[in-house]
């Protein structure tokens, strides 16, 4: 599966980056390709490549707040969760995403 993701938490200092790291690690562990953008206190970092978004099978938003540039994902399959869900059990989340996408 090709995944693109955005992580953003309230303060944008910690959970955002923890979520990013865990998403990438667990997605790769399960054999997917993923690129993840963060929208922390510093603004957008590692901005998603429009081509990656176009090619992606699913968009995972691990966000607690409203994010910038949502319009990029119009027409894509978008799955939204809290950052805490990612921090707690990223593997489980990826599993669930697999299941939902296969349907």
């Amino acid at each position, binding site marked *: 599966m090709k995944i693109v993701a955005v992580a953003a*938490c*309230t*303060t*944008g*200092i*910690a*959970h955002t980056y*923890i979520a990013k*790291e*865990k998403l990438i*690690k*667990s997605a790769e*562990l399960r054999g997917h390709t993923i690129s993840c953008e963060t929208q922390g*206190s510093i603004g957008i970092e590692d901005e998603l490549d429009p081509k990656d978004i176009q090619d992606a099978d699913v968009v995972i938003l691990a*966000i*607690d*707040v*409203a994010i910038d540039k949502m319009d990029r994902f119009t027409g894509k*399959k*978008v*799955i*939204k*969760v*809290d950052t*805490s*869900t990612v*921090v*707690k*059990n*990223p*593997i*489980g*989340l990826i*599993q*669930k*995403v697999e*299941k*939902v996408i296969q349907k």
Partner: protein
Amino acid sequence: MNDIINIKELKQHILTGISYFIPLVVGAGLTMAIGRAMAGSSVANLGDSGIGYWLYQTGSLGMQLMVPMLCAYIAFSMGSKPALAPGFIIGWVAQNINTGFIGGMVGGILVGIVVNLCKKYIHLPKVIESLKGMLVIPFLATAISGLLMYAVIQGPIIWLMAQLTSFLQSLSSGSKFIYGGVLGAMATFDFGGPVNKTATAFVNALYAEGIRDAKTVQIIASMIQPFGIAIACLLARNKFTRAEKETLKAAVPMGCFMISEGVIPIAARDLARVVFACVCGSFVAGGLSMVWGNSSELLNGGFIAFPFFTSPMQGLICLAVGSAVTGIVLAVIKKKVTEEDEKQEVELGKELSDEDLDNIEIEIM
């Protein structure tokens, strides 16, 4: 209904407001603090020009934007771009009719609702469709929300705040200890998460009313986690992994400025024990600070705020006592590090069975 206001997402809207508002409070608060520090015993010493005065003015004008900013970005989160400008205006109204933080929150939600209603029900002929976002929505949202703020919302909020204020002032010192303790515990409970932000919202609302002892509790409590855990690490070095000791080197300086997120990786490995220890420490410190009635002039800043407490000394004592409690409790209850712990990298959770998968909440948009 859900495209007007989605109750489930309300939390997200408020958090969005708060996430935009934090840098404002920090920026304006610190600027003001430095100006205030240059004034010595009284602000009047600054006169009406000079670096100290300019810094103080810049900061205090900035602080007046606190409620408008919060209101605007709650509205923005709900109704996107057309809601932002009315949000700022209504936030400024909330500020000026003394409904403070709560007024800003309610106002932001109100603007969001009005904007979403306009988007849904107002249809213009194709030729002048573009006027909708430019003219119709900003005007209607501002006018309608403004009228409602004055006519409906102002009264109850002011009444509510007055009730709360007099209730808090009537507390005996025993109940004060518990009240301060609970506030402190909430501030540390989830390391900058939703419970912490709820406490922040409550404390900021009080601050806007001129009740500033709760703020001190929050400032001190937010610093206890990194310091307390560092003390525990000094007391029981074999109970922390190498990676955790590295983490602490960054977390303690961050803690000096009241950023407690630095210790999350340490808490994540051993959540229950770390949270328990932090809650113990911040409960004691919060209770103590509240009983002493130590007030803070600043909203933020960690150690920078200490000189602006009614009593900086009491502040330091509370911080020391709280950190010591957390440190000792944690040093006692934490388990020794094993080889496995050292090897373990980022905890990724485990594969789940199908039933457990259903428990993971996701939203498909």
